[in-house]
Protein backbone atom coordinates (compact mmCIF):
# COMPACT_ATOMS: atom_id res chain seq x y z
CA UNK A 1 0.00 0.00 0.00
CA UNK A 2 2.69 2.45 1.02
CA UNK A 3 4.62 1.60 -2.14
CA UNK A 4 1.62 2.38 -4.23
CA UNK A 5 0.97 5.76 -2.68
CA UNK A 6 4.60 6.82 -2.98
CA UNK A 7 4.46 5.67 -6.59
CA UNK A 8 1.37 7.77 -7.17
CA UNK A 9 2.88 10.88 -5.74
CA UNK A 10 5.86 10.50 -8.08
CA UNK A 11 3.69 10.95 -11.19
CA UNK A 12 4.55 14.34 -12.68
CA UNK A 13 1.67 16.76 -12.97
CA UNK A 14 0.33 16.93 -16.51
CA UNK A 15 0.26 20.51 -17.72
CA UNK A 16 -1.49 19.97 -21.03
CA UNK A 17 -5.15 19.20 -21.63
CA UNK A 18 -5.65 15.95 -23.56
CA UNK A 19 -7.00 17.99 -26.47
CA UNK A 20 -3.67 19.84 -26.61
CA UNK A 21 -2.09 16.63 -27.83
CA UNK A 22 -4.34 16.56 -30.86
CA UNK A 23 -3.23 17.56 -34.30
CA UNK A 24 -4.76 21.06 -34.59
CA UNK A 25 -6.06 20.35 -38.10
CA UNK A 26 -8.01 17.36 -36.85
CA UNK A 27 -9.10 19.11 -33.69
CA UNK A 28 -10.54 22.06 -35.58
CA UNK A 29 -12.58 20.02 -38.06
CA UNK A 30 -16.26 20.36 -37.19
CA UNK A 31 -18.22 17.16 -36.68
CA UNK A 32 -20.68 16.62 -39.50
CA UNK A 33 -24.13 18.19 -39.30
CA UNK A 34 -25.54 14.73 -39.90
CA UNK A 35 -23.95 13.45 -36.72
CA UNK A 36 -25.51 16.27 -34.73
CA UNK A 37 -28.91 15.52 -36.19
CA UNK A 38 -28.48 11.79 -35.58
CA UNK A 39 -28.02 12.45 -31.87
CA UNK A 40 -31.22 14.45 -31.81
CA UNK A 41 -33.22 11.77 -33.63
CA UNK A 42 -31.87 9.01 -31.38
CA UNK A 43 -33.61 10.54 -28.37
CA UNK A 44 -37.06 10.04 -29.91
CA UNK A 45 -39.45 7.15 -30.42
CA UNK A 46 -41.75 6.22 -33.34
CA UNK A 47 -39.96 8.49 -35.76
CA UNK A 48 -40.47 7.91 -39.47
CA UNK A 49 -37.08 8.52 -40.95
CA UNK A 50 -36.21 9.80 -44.39
CA UNK A 51 -32.69 10.37 -43.12
CA UNK A 52 -31.09 7.09 -44.04
CA UNK A 53 -28.34 7.18 -46.63
CA UNK A 54 -28.41 3.50 -47.49
CA UNK A 55 -30.64 1.02 -49.33
CA UNK A 56 -33.58 -0.48 -47.46
CA UNK A 57 -32.91 -3.84 -49.08
CA UNK A 58 -30.88 -6.52 -47.39
CA UNK A 59 -27.95 -7.83 -49.46
CA UNK A 60 -29.37 -10.48 -51.83
CA UNK A 61 -29.14 -13.95 -50.34
CA UNK A 62 -26.88 -15.45 -53.00
CA UNK A 63 -24.34 -12.70 -52.27
CA UNK A 64 -24.46 -13.33 -48.53
CA UNK A 65 -24.19 -17.04 -49.20
CA UNK A 66 -21.03 -16.53 -51.27
CA UNK A 67 -19.41 -14.89 -48.24
CA UNK A 68 -20.58 -17.68 -45.94
CA UNK A 69 -19.22 -20.25 -48.39
CA UNK A 70 -15.86 -18.50 -48.50
CA UNK A 71 -15.68 -18.75 -44.70
CA UNK A 72 -16.70 -22.41 -44.75
CA UNK A 73 -13.93 -23.13 -47.22
CA UNK A 74 -11.47 -21.38 -44.95
CA UNK A 75 -10.75 -18.35 -47.15
CA UNK A 76 -9.79 -16.30 -44.16
CA UNK A 77 -6.35 -15.03 -45.21
CA UNK A 78 -5.16 -11.71 -46.63
CA UNK A 79 -5.60 -11.19 -50.33
CA UNK A 80 -3.11 -9.28 -52.44
CA UNK A 81 -3.00 -5.60 -51.49
CA UNK A 82 -4.93 -4.56 -54.56
CA UNK A 83 -7.59 -7.21 -53.96
CA UNK A 84 -8.26 -10.63 -55.52
CA UNK A 85 -7.35 -10.63 -59.19
CA UNK A 86 -10.65 -12.40 -60.06
CA UNK A 87 -12.55 -9.55 -58.45
CA UNK A 88 -10.45 -6.90 -60.20
CA UNK A 89 -11.09 -8.64 -63.52
CA UNK A 90 -14.81 -8.78 -62.79
CA UNK A 91 -14.75 -5.04 -61.99
CA UNK A 92 -12.99 -4.33 -65.31
CA UNK A 93 -15.50 -6.39 -67.29
CA UNK A 94 -18.37 -4.70 -65.52
CA UNK A 95 -17.07 -1.16 -66.08
CA UNK A 96 -16.39 -1.94 -69.71
CA UNK A 97 -19.77 -3.47 -70.48
CA UNK A 98 -21.83 -1.04 -68.38
CA UNK A 99 -20.00 2.28 -68.78
CA UNK A 100 -17.65 1.78 -71.74
CA UNK A 101 -14.45 2.50 -69.90
CA UNK A 102 -11.54 0.06 -70.06
CA UNK A 103 -9.01 -0.66 -67.32
CA UNK A 104 -6.17 -3.12 -66.90
CA UNK A 105 -7.01 -5.40 -63.97
CA UNK A 106 -3.34 -5.81 -63.01
CA UNK A 107 -2.26 -2.19 -62.81
CA UNK A 108 -5.20 0.14 -62.96
CA UNK A 109 -7.65 -1.21 -60.39
CA UNK A 110 -7.55 -1.58 -56.64
CA UNK A 111 -10.16 -2.87 -54.21
CA UNK A 112 -10.70 -0.64 -51.16
CA UNK A 113 -12.63 -0.55 -47.91
CA UNK A 114 -15.67 1.16 -49.32
CA UNK A 115 -15.60 4.00 -51.80
CA UNK A 116 -14.71 6.17 -48.79
CA UNK A 117 -11.24 4.69 -48.46
CA UNK A 118 -10.67 5.16 -52.18
CA UNK A 119 -11.50 8.88 -51.85
CA UNK A 120 -9.22 9.21 -48.84
CA UNK A 121 -6.36 7.42 -50.65
CA UNK A 122 -6.77 9.46 -53.80
CA UNK A 123 -6.71 12.75 -51.91
CA UNK A 124 -3.75 11.74 -49.76
CA UNK A 125 -1.84 10.47 -52.78
CA UNK A 126 -2.41 13.66 -54.78
CA UNK A 127 -2.48 16.63 -52.43
CA UNK A 128 0.60 18.69 -51.67
CA UNK A 129 0.19 21.32 -48.94
CA UNK A 130 -1.95 24.21 -50.15
CA UNK A 131 -3.30 22.52 -53.28
CA UNK A 132 -6.84 23.54 -54.04
CA UNK A 133 -9.51 20.88 -54.38
CA UNK A 134 -12.69 21.95 -56.14
CA UNK A 135 -15.90 20.44 -54.84
CA UNK A 136 -19.34 21.04 -56.37
CA UNK A 137 -21.81 21.41 -53.53
CA UNK A 138 -24.19 20.40 -52.00
CA UNK A 139 -22.31 17.12 -51.82
CA UNK A 140 -21.46 14.10 -49.74
CA UNK A 141 -20.03 15.28 -46.46
CA UNK A 142 -16.53 13.81 -46.44
CA UNK A 143 -14.72 15.45 -49.36
CA UNK A 144 -13.87 18.73 -47.66
CA UNK A 145 -12.77 17.33 -44.29
CA UNK A 146 -10.51 14.74 -45.91
CA UNK A 147 -9.06 17.43 -48.15
CA UNK A 148 -8.28 19.50 -45.08
CA UNK A 149 -6.76 16.55 -43.21
CA UNK A 150 -4.59 15.85 -46.26
CA UNK A 151 -3.24 19.41 -46.22
CA UNK A 152 -5.31 20.70 -49.12
CA UNK A 153 -7.73 23.58 -49.36
CA UNK A 154 -11.29 22.66 -50.27
CA UNK A 155 -13.04 25.15 -52.52
CA UNK A 156 -16.80 24.74 -52.80
CA UNK A 157 -18.66 25.38 -56.05
CA UNK A 158 -22.29 26.18 -55.43
CA UNK A 159 -24.84 24.43 -57.65
CA UNK A 160 -28.53 25.28 -57.87
CA UNK A 161 -31.96 23.69 -57.99
CA UNK A 162 -32.80 25.71 -61.13
CA UNK A 163 -30.01 23.78 -62.94
CA UNK A 164 -31.08 20.47 -61.36
CA UNK A 165 -27.88 20.84 -59.31
CA UNK A 166 -25.68 20.20 -62.33
CA UNK A 167 -22.15 21.56 -62.39
CA UNK A 168 -21.89 24.30 -65.02
CA UNK A 169 -18.86 25.47 -66.96
CA UNK A 170 -19.21 29.06 -65.70
CA UNK A 171 -19.37 28.04 -62.06
CA UNK A 172 -16.30 25.84 -62.46
CA UNK A 173 -14.28 28.50 -64.29
CA UNK A 174 -15.07 31.05 -61.60
CA UNK A 175 -13.23 29.16 -58.84
CA UNK A 176 -10.14 28.08 -60.76
CA UNK A 177 -6.83 29.58 -59.59
CA UNK A 178 -3.21 28.63 -60.29
CA UNK A 179 -3.37 26.42 -57.16
CA UNK A 180 -6.35 24.39 -58.44
CA UNK A 181 -5.33 20.77 -58.82
CA UNK A 182 -8.18 18.38 -58.18
CA UNK A 183 -11.86 18.41 -59.09
CA UNK A 184 -14.09 16.04 -57.14
CA UNK A 185 -17.27 14.97 -58.92
CA UNK A 186 -20.12 13.02 -57.40
CA UNK A 187 -22.89 12.30 -59.88
CA UNK A 188 -25.50 10.90 -59.44
CA UNK A 189 -25.42 13.16 -56.42
CA UNK A 190 -25.97 12.56 -52.78
CA UNK A 191 -27.86 14.65 -51.55
CA UNK A 192 -29.52 16.26 -54.59
CA UNK A 193 -30.21 13.32 -56.90
CA UNK A 194 -28.69 15.40 -59.72
CA UNK A 195 -27.01 13.68 -62.65
CA UNK A 196 -24.72 14.75 -65.50
CA UNK A 197 -25.33 13.68 -69.09
CA UNK A 198 -22.77 13.36 -71.89
CA UNK A 199 -23.70 16.88 -73.07
CA UNK A 200 -23.40 18.24 -69.52
CA UNK A 201 -19.93 16.71 -69.17
CA UNK A 202 -18.49 18.03 -72.45
CA UNK A 203 -17.79 21.62 -71.32
CA UNK A 204 -16.57 20.38 -67.92
CA UNK A 205 -14.08 18.07 -69.63
CA UNK A 206 -12.86 21.03 -71.69
CA UNK A 207 -12.19 23.10 -68.55
CA UNK A 208 -10.46 20.16 -66.89
CA UNK A 209 -8.20 19.76 -69.92
CA UNK A 210 -7.41 23.46 -70.27
CA UNK A 211 -6.51 23.80 -66.62
CA UNK A 212 -4.67 20.51 -66.39
CA UNK A 213 -6.83 19.30 -63.48
CA UNK A 214 -7.07 15.78 -62.16
CA UNK A 215 -10.52 14.45 -61.37
CA UNK A 216 -11.74 12.17 -58.62
CA UNK A 217 -15.10 10.92 -59.86
CA UNK A 218 -17.17 9.32 -57.12
CA UNK A 219 -19.66 7.20 -59.07
CA UNK A 220 -21.01 5.15 -56.19
CA UNK A 221 -24.61 5.80 -57.33
CA UNK A 222 -23.88 5.01 -61.01
CA UNK A 223 -26.41 2.18 -61.14
CA UNK A 224 -29.16 4.29 -59.62
CA UNK A 225 -30.27 6.50 -62.50
CA UNK A 226 -33.80 6.83 -63.76
CA UNK A 227 -34.63 7.57 -67.35
CA UNK A 228 -31.11 7.83 -68.72
CA UNK A 229 -28.08 5.63 -68.24
CA UNK A 230 -25.19 6.96 -66.16
CA UNK A 231 -22.31 8.49 -68.11
CA UNK A 232 -18.96 7.97 -66.41
CA UNK A 233 -16.70 11.00 -66.50
CA UNK A 234 -13.82 8.62 -67.23
CA UNK A 235 -15.59 7.61 -70.45
CA UNK A 236 -15.50 11.18 -71.80
CA UNK A 237 -12.99 11.72 -74.61
CA UNK A 238 -9.50 12.32 -73.18
CA UNK A 239 -10.66 12.07 -69.55
CA UNK A 240 -9.72 8.47 -68.74
CA UNK A 241 -6.07 9.40 -68.01
CA UNK A 242 -7.08 12.35 -65.83
CA UNK A 243 -9.74 10.59 -63.83
CA UNK A 244 -9.66 8.41 -60.77
CA UNK A 245 -12.92 6.53 -60.95
CA UNK A 246 -14.19 5.63 -57.49
CA UNK A 247 -17.12 3.32 -56.92
CA UNK A 248 -18.27 0.38 -54.84
CA UNK A 249 -20.89 -2.20 -54.13
CA UNK A 250 -22.87 -0.53 -51.35
CA UNK A 251 -25.56 1.31 -53.24
CA UNK A 252 -26.07 -0.87 -56.33
CA UNK A 253 -26.12 -4.22 -54.53
CA UNK A 254 -27.34 -3.14 -51.08
CA UNK A 255 -23.96 -3.92 -49.50
CA UNK A 256 -23.24 -0.88 -47.30
CA UNK A 257 -22.07 -2.81 -44.25
CA UNK A 258 -19.62 -4.91 -46.24
CA UNK A 259 -17.39 -1.87 -46.78
CA UNK A 260 -16.19 -2.70 -50.25
CA UNK A 261 -15.29 -0.30 -53.01
CA UNK A 262 -12.68 0.26 -55.66
CA UNK A 263 -10.62 2.84 -57.49
CA UNK A 264 -9.49 2.79 -61.10
CA UNK A 265 -7.04 5.10 -62.76
CA UNK A 266 -3.59 5.73 -64.19
CA UNK A 267 -1.12 3.02 -63.03
CA UNK A 268 1.17 5.63 -61.40
CA UNK A 269 -1.65 7.01 -59.29
CA UNK A 270 -3.06 3.60 -58.39
CA UNK A 271 0.46 2.50 -57.38
CA UNK A 272 0.75 5.52 -55.05
CA UNK A 273 -2.69 4.89 -53.54
CA UNK A 274 -1.79 1.24 -53.13
CA UNK A 275 1.29 2.22 -51.16
CA UNK A 276 -0.82 4.04 -48.57
CA UNK A 277 -3.42 1.25 -48.60
CA UNK A 278 -0.72 -1.37 -48.02
CA UNK A 279 0.68 0.45 -45.00
CA UNK A 280 -2.68 1.26 -43.45
CA UNK A 281 -5.07 -1.62 -44.10
CA UNK A 282 -3.21 -4.32 -46.09
CA UNK A 283 -6.26 -5.33 -48.07
CA UNK A 284 -10.05 -5.20 -48.04
CA UNK A 285 -11.77 -7.99 -46.05
CA UNK A 286 -11.54 -11.28 -47.91
CA UNK A 287 -15.10 -12.52 -47.35
CA UNK A 288 -16.48 -9.22 -48.57
CA UNK A 289 -14.42 -9.59 -51.74
CA UNK A 290 -15.98 -13.00 -52.39
CA UNK A 291 -19.42 -11.51 -51.87
CA UNK A 292 -18.64 -8.67 -54.27
CA UNK A 293 -17.43 -11.13 -56.90
CA UNK A 294 -20.74 -12.96 -56.63
CA UNK A 295 -22.68 -9.69 -56.86
CA UNK A 296 -20.92 -8.72 -60.09
CA UNK A 297 -21.20 -12.20 -61.56
CA UNK A 298 -24.81 -13.08 -60.76
CA UNK A 299 -26.38 -10.03 -59.16
CA UNK A 300 -27.50 -7.87 -62.07
CA UNK A 301 -31.09 -9.07 -62.21
CA UNK A 302 -31.61 -8.46 -58.52
CA UNK A 303 -29.96 -5.05 -58.88
CA UNK A 304 -32.37 -4.11 -61.70
CA UNK A 305 -35.28 -5.11 -59.51
CA UNK A 306 -34.07 -2.84 -56.70
CA UNK A 307 -33.49 0.07 -59.10
CA UNK A 308 -37.04 -0.29 -60.46
CA UNK A 309 -38.35 -0.22 -56.91
CA UNK A 310 -36.41 2.99 -56.08
CA UNK A 311 -37.74 4.54 -59.26
CA UNK A 312 -41.35 3.81 -58.24
CA UNK A 313 -40.82 5.33 -54.83
CA UNK A 314 -38.98 8.31 -56.36
CA UNK A 315 -42.04 9.18 -58.42
CA UNK A 316 -44.25 8.79 -55.37
CA UNK A 317 -42.18 11.09 -53.18
CA UNK A 318 -41.67 13.80 -55.83
CA UNK A 319 -45.41 13.84 -56.58
CA UNK A 320 -46.03 13.90 -52.83
CA UNK A 321 -43.90 17.04 -52.35
CA UNK A 322 -45.65 18.76 -55.24
CA UNK A 323 -49.03 17.86 -53.78
CA UNK A 324 -48.22 19.41 -50.40
CA UNK A 325 -46.81 22.53 -52.02
CA UNK A 326 -43.05 22.05 -51.54
CA UNK A 327 -41.00 22.84 -54.61
CA UNK A 328 -38.94 19.82 -55.64
CA UNK A 329 -36.78 19.48 -58.76
CA UNK A 330 -36.88 16.02 -60.28
CA UNK A 331 -34.04 13.91 -58.90
CA UNK A 332 -32.75 11.63 -61.66
CA UNK A 333 -30.33 9.53 -59.71
CA UNK A 334 -29.40 8.10 -56.28
CA UNK A 335 -32.30 7.70 -53.82
CA UNK A 336 -32.76 11.21 -52.50
CA UNK A 337 -35.21 14.00 -53.10
CA UNK A 338 -34.02 17.47 -52.16
CA UNK A 339 -37.12 19.65 -51.88
CA UNK A 340 -36.89 23.36 -51.18
CA UNK A 341 -38.41 24.50 -47.90
CA UNK A 342 -37.69 28.20 -48.54
CA UNK A 343 -41.41 28.97 -48.91
CA UNK A 344 -41.87 28.24 -45.20
CA UNK A 345 -39.47 30.98 -44.16
CA UNK A 346 -37.52 28.61 -41.93
CA UNK A 347 -33.87 27.65 -42.25
CA UNK A 348 -33.10 24.02 -43.06
CA UNK A 349 -31.96 23.43 -39.52
CA UNK A 350 -35.09 24.97 -37.98
CA UNK A 351 -37.35 23.14 -40.38
CA UNK A 352 -35.73 19.75 -39.78
CA UNK A 353 -35.71 20.18 -36.03
CA UNK A 354 -39.33 21.32 -35.81
CA UNK A 355 -40.43 18.65 -38.27
CA UNK A 356 -38.89 16.10 -35.97
CA UNK A 357 -40.36 17.56 -32.81
CA UNK A 358 -43.81 18.41 -34.13
CA UNK A 359 -44.43 15.71 -36.76
CA UNK A 360 -41.99 12.97 -35.78
CA UNK A 361 -40.40 12.80 -39.22
CA UNK A 362 -36.62 12.85 -39.61
CA UNK A 363 -34.91 14.26 -42.67
CA UNK A 364 -31.47 15.79 -42.97
CA UNK A 365 -31.15 19.60 -43.14
CA UNK A 366 -29.65 20.57 -46.48
CA UNK A 367 -27.00 22.89 -45.02
CA UNK A 368 -25.15 19.78 -43.77
CA UNK A 369 -24.07 19.22 -47.39
CA UNK A 370 -22.30 22.53 -47.97
CA UNK A 371 -22.95 25.49 -50.27
CA UNK A 372 -26.38 25.59 -51.87
CA UNK A 373 -27.84 23.16 -49.35
CA UNK A 374 -29.46 25.80 -47.14
CA UNK A 375 -33.19 26.01 -47.78
CA UNK A 376 -33.42 22.35 -48.71
CA UNK A 377 -34.09 19.07 -46.98
CA UNK A 378 -32.55 15.74 -47.93
CA UNK A 379 -35.22 13.06 -47.99
CA UNK A 380 -34.16 9.51 -48.68
CA UNK A 381 -36.89 7.51 -50.36
CA UNK A 382 -35.17 4.20 -49.61
CA UNK A 383 -37.96 3.24 -47.24
CA UNK A 384 -41.29 1.46 -47.56
CA UNK A 385 -44.20 2.89 -49.54
CA UNK A 386 -46.24 2.93 -46.32
CA UNK A 387 -43.55 4.99 -44.55
CA UNK A 388 -43.20 7.37 -47.48
CA UNK A 389 -46.93 7.93 -47.69
CA UNK A 390 -47.23 8.56 -43.97
CA UNK A 391 -44.15 10.82 -43.94
CA UNK A 392 -45.46 12.96 -46.80
CA UNK A 393 -48.82 13.22 -45.05
CA UNK A 394 -47.16 14.39 -41.84
CA UNK A 395 -44.84 16.84 -43.64
CA UNK A 396 -47.90 18.16 -45.50
CA UNK A 397 -49.77 18.86 -42.27
CA UNK A 398 -46.68 20.43 -40.73
CA UNK A 399 -46.14 22.74 -43.73
CA UNK A 400 -49.83 23.64 -43.81
CA UNK A 401 -49.73 24.67 -40.16
CA UNK A 402 -46.56 26.72 -40.74
CA UNK A 403 -48.13 28.57 -43.64
CA UNK A 404 -51.30 29.26 -41.65
CA UNK A 405 -48.93 31.01 -39.23
Amino acid at each position, binding site marked *: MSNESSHQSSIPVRTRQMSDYLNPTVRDIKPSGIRRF*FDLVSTRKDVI*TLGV*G*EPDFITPWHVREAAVMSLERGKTQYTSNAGMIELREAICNYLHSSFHVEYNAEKEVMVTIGGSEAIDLALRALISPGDEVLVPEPC*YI*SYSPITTISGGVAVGIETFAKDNFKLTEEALRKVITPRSKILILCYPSNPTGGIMTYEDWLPIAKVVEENDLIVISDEIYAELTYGSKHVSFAAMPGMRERTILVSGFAKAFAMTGWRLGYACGHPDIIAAMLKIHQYTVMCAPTMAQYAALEALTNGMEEKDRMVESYNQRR*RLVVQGFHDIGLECHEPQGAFYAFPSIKSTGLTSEEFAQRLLEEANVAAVPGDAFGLGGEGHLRCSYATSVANLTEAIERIGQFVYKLKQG
Partner: protein
Amino acid sequence: MTGISDFQLKVLALLQEDARLKPEVLATMLGATVEEVKGAIEAMEQNHVIVKYATIVNWSKMHDEKVTALIEVQITPERGRGFDRIAESIYLYPEVKSLYLMSGAYDLQVEIEGDSLKQVASFVSNKLSTIEAVLSTKTYFILKKYKQDGIIFEENESDHRMMVSP
Protein backbone atom coordinates in the same frame (compact mmCIF):
# COMPACT_ATOMS: atom_id res chain seq x y z
CA MET B 1 -50.35 -17.83 -70.52
CA THR B 2 -52.67 -14.95 -71.28
CA GLY B 3 -50.94 -12.22 -73.29
CA ILE B 4 -49.88 -10.08 -70.35
CA SER B 5 -47.98 -6.84 -70.95
CA ASP B 6 -44.87 -5.56 -69.17
CA PHE B 7 -46.99 -2.84 -67.66
CA GLN B 8 -49.52 -5.36 -66.32
CA LEU B 9 -46.64 -7.33 -64.83
CA LYS B 10 -45.40 -4.24 -62.99
CA VAL B 11 -48.87 -3.52 -61.62
CA LEU B 12 -49.16 -7.15 -60.58
CA ALA B 13 -45.80 -7.15 -58.80
CA LEU B 14 -46.85 -4.13 -56.71
CA LEU B 15 -50.29 -5.57 -55.92
CA GLN B 16 -48.74 -8.86 -54.87
CA GLU B 17 -46.75 -6.93 -52.28
CA ASP B 18 -49.70 -4.81 -51.18
CA ALA B 19 -53.13 -5.38 -52.71
CA ARG B 20 -54.46 -2.26 -50.99
CA LEU B 21 -52.37 0.21 -53.01
CA LYS B 22 -54.80 2.61 -54.66
CA PRO B 23 -54.82 3.08 -58.44
CA GLU B 24 -53.73 6.71 -57.93
CA VAL B 25 -50.64 5.62 -56.00
CA LEU B 26 -49.86 2.83 -58.46
CA ALA B 27 -50.15 5.32 -61.32
CA THR B 28 -47.67 7.71 -59.69
CA MET B 29 -45.24 4.92 -58.86
CA LEU B 30 -45.30 3.57 -62.39
CA GLY B 31 -45.31 6.93 -64.15
CA ALA B 32 -48.65 6.13 -65.79
CA THR B 33 -52.17 7.55 -65.76
CA VAL B 34 -54.84 6.34 -63.36
CA GLU B 35 -56.87 5.16 -66.37
CA GLU B 36 -53.98 3.00 -67.59
CA VAL B 37 -53.66 1.39 -64.17
CA LYS B 38 -57.39 0.81 -63.81
CA GLY B 39 -57.50 -0.64 -67.31
CA ALA B 40 -54.66 -3.04 -66.58
CA ILE B 41 -56.25 -4.19 -63.34
CA GLU B 42 -59.66 -4.67 -64.94
CA ALA B 43 -58.17 -6.65 -67.81
CA MET B 44 -56.33 -8.93 -65.40
CA GLU B 45 -59.42 -9.37 -63.26
CA GLN B 46 -61.49 -10.25 -66.29
CA ASN B 47 -59.15 -12.92 -67.59
CA HIS B 48 -58.59 -14.23 -64.07
CA VAL B 49 -54.89 -13.40 -63.90
CA ILE B 50 -55.96 -11.65 -60.71
CA VAL B 51 -58.18 -14.19 -59.01
CA LYS B 52 -58.92 -12.52 -55.71
CA TYR B 53 -57.62 -9.97 -53.18
CA ALA B 54 -57.23 -11.95 -49.99
CA THR B 55 -55.55 -11.44 -46.62
CA ILE B 56 -52.66 -13.57 -45.45
CA VAL B 57 -53.42 -14.44 -41.85
CA ASN B 58 -51.01 -15.64 -39.23
CA TRP B 59 -53.48 -17.82 -37.33
CA SER B 60 -50.94 -18.68 -34.67
CA LYS B 61 -51.47 -15.11 -33.39
CA MET B 62 -55.11 -15.95 -32.64
CA HIS B 63 -56.22 -17.81 -29.56
CA ASP B 64 -58.40 -20.24 -31.48
CA GLU B 65 -55.63 -21.72 -33.54
CA LYS B 66 -56.43 -23.44 -36.78
CA VAL B 67 -55.07 -26.87 -37.62
CA THR B 68 -53.57 -27.34 -41.07
CA ALA B 69 -52.61 -30.65 -42.66
CA LEU B 70 -51.07 -31.68 -45.95
CA ILE B 71 -52.48 -34.94 -47.28
CA GLU B 72 -50.84 -37.05 -49.95
CA VAL B 73 -53.51 -38.87 -51.91
CA GLN B 74 -53.07 -41.73 -54.36
CA ILE B 75 -55.96 -42.26 -56.76
CA THR B 76 -56.98 -44.33 -59.77
CA PRO B 77 -57.51 -42.00 -62.69
CA GLU B 78 -60.76 -42.33 -64.62
CA ARG B 79 -60.77 -43.35 -68.22
CA GLY B 80 -61.18 -40.34 -70.49
CA ARG B 81 -61.19 -37.75 -67.72
CA GLY B 82 -57.92 -38.45 -65.95
CA PHE B 83 -57.71 -36.83 -62.53
CA ASP B 84 -59.89 -33.80 -63.10
CA ARG B 85 -63.30 -35.07 -61.99
CA ILE B 86 -61.89 -36.67 -58.86
CA ALA B 87 -59.95 -33.50 -58.12
CA GLU B 88 -63.20 -31.56 -58.42
CA SER B 89 -65.00 -33.86 -56.01
CA ILE B 90 -62.22 -33.10 -53.53
CA TYR B 91 -61.70 -29.36 -53.99
CA LEU B 92 -65.41 -28.60 -53.68
CA TYR B 93 -65.20 -29.35 -49.96
CA PRO B 94 -64.79 -25.99 -48.21
CA GLU B 95 -62.25 -27.49 -45.81
CA VAL B 96 -59.85 -27.93 -48.74
CA LYS B 97 -57.60 -24.87 -48.93
CA SER B 98 -55.47 -25.97 -51.86
CA LEU B 99 -55.20 -28.93 -54.18
CA TYR B 100 -52.36 -29.78 -56.53
CA LEU B 101 -51.80 -32.57 -59.02
CA MET B 102 -48.28 -33.83 -58.33
CA SER B 103 -45.56 -35.71 -60.14
CA GLY B 104 -43.81 -38.46 -58.18
CA ALA B 105 -44.88 -40.94 -55.55
CA TYR B 106 -48.46 -39.73 -55.09
CA ASP B 107 -51.08 -37.98 -57.22
CA LEU B 108 -52.82 -35.19 -55.35
CA GLN B 109 -51.70 -32.96 -52.55
CA VAL B 110 -54.57 -31.67 -50.46
CA GLU B 111 -54.23 -28.89 -47.94
CA ILE B 112 -56.90 -29.00 -45.26
CA GLU B 113 -57.68 -26.40 -42.65
CA GLY B 114 -59.82 -27.23 -39.66
CA ASP B 115 -60.59 -25.98 -36.17
CA SER B 116 -59.22 -29.06 -34.46
CA LEU B 117 -57.18 -32.19 -35.01
CA LYS B 118 -60.38 -34.18 -34.67
CA GLN B 119 -62.14 -32.22 -37.38
CA VAL B 120 -59.29 -32.80 -39.85
CA ALA B 121 -59.08 -36.51 -38.96
CA SER B 122 -62.79 -36.84 -39.48
CA PHE B 123 -62.58 -35.17 -42.89
CA VAL B 124 -59.92 -37.64 -43.98
CA SER B 125 -61.67 -40.76 -42.73
CA ASN B 126 -65.28 -39.81 -43.53
CA LYS B 127 -64.99 -37.78 -46.69
CA LEU B 128 -61.67 -38.14 -48.46
CA SER B 129 -61.02 -41.86 -47.95
CA THR B 130 -64.53 -42.83 -48.91
CA ILE B 131 -64.23 -41.41 -52.43
CA GLU B 132 -64.13 -44.49 -54.61
CA ALA B 133 -61.08 -43.60 -56.67
CA VAL B 134 -58.94 -42.85 -53.62
CA LEU B 135 -56.46 -45.66 -52.99
CA SER B 136 -54.56 -44.32 -50.02
CA THR B 137 -53.93 -41.16 -47.97
CA LYS B 138 -51.06 -39.98 -45.81
CA THR B 139 -51.75 -37.06 -43.50
CA TYR B 140 -49.09 -34.65 -42.26
CA PHE B 141 -50.00 -31.98 -39.73
CA ILE B 142 -48.25 -28.62 -40.02
CA LEU B 143 -46.61 -27.72 -36.73
CA LYS B 144 -45.44 -24.20 -37.51
CA LYS B 145 -45.58 -21.84 -40.46
CA TYR B 146 -42.38 -19.97 -41.16
CA LYS B 147 -43.20 -18.57 -44.55
CA GLN B 148 -46.27 -18.58 -46.77
CA ASP B 149 -46.71 -17.17 -50.27
CA GLY B 150 -43.32 -15.49 -50.00
CA ILE B 151 -44.20 -13.77 -46.72
CA ILE B 152 -42.03 -14.57 -43.71
CA PHE B 153 -44.11 -14.94 -40.54
CA GLU B 154 -41.32 -14.44 -38.00
CA GLU B 155 -41.08 -10.88 -36.76
CA ASN B 156 -37.35 -10.35 -37.15
CA GLU B 157 -37.53 -8.40 -40.35
CA SER B 158 -37.31 -4.97 -38.72
CA ASP B 159 -35.17 -2.18 -40.12
CA HIS B 160 -31.66 -2.46 -38.70
CA ARG B 161 -30.39 0.71 -40.28
CA MET B 162 -29.30 3.75 -38.29
CA MET B 163 -32.00 6.42 -38.25
CA VAL B 164 -29.79 8.99 -39.94
CA SER B 165 -26.66 8.36 -42.00
CA PRO B 166 -24.62 10.27 -44.57
